């Protein structure tokens, strides 16, 4: 029987060892570009309900690091949102939009 000190200085060099492995979620669900995934080629400015997914509750366009949209379609989304705003289909400024 080894003493506690010996166990602590064991092979792992004093790492804390748990009886059950810690359940830490490390694998996040990967973001994807919904246009490429579902094969949408044209972003329509006449459909404000759809464009709502790409703005925050103040009516600002969300960055693609949050939505996962690819650069090619992010540009199209931005243009579509701006056109929709011009036609008063979407607000320029708002709060509590969602």
């Amino acid at each position, binding site marked *: 029987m080894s003493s506690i000190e010996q166990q602590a200085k064991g092979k792992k060099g004093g790492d804390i060892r748990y009886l059950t492995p810690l359940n830490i979620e490390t694998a996040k669900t990967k973001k994807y570009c919904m246009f490429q995934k579902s094969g949408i*080629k*044209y972003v*329509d*400015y*006449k459909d*404000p309900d759809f464009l709502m997914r790409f703005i925050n509750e103040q009516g600002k366009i969300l960055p693609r690091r949050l939505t996962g949209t690819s650069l090619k379609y992010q540009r199209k989304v931005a243009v579509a949102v701006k*056109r929709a*705003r*011009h*036609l*008063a*289909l*979407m*607000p*320029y*400024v*708002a709060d509590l939009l969602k």
Partner: protein
Amino acid sequence: MNHYETVFILNPVLSEEQIKETVKKYEDILVSNGAKMISKENWGLKKLAYAIQHKKSGFYHLFEYTVAGDAINQLEVNFRRDERIMRYLTVALDKHAIAWAEKRRKRNQKTA
């Protein structure tokens, strides 16, 4: 000949007669410039996302057509001079947009 799409918003105080007349006027401008109308849509009275000229709603109309580029200039000059038009937007359609417009029209016909 290019493929275009125009959305314009009419003043909500107009009577039905005046609206028909205005829409007809702009259609005539296009047709007299050799445009081929592909579709006309009337979205009816819609609430605006923000006030334009202190009005909170407007009549939306959509035209889709092919025409030579010069006619657009003339159409937009007329839009700007007209007090009945609150907003307009003309967009040239690329091939993906044309495909989408066709799909959208078919879907609208089904629901209508």
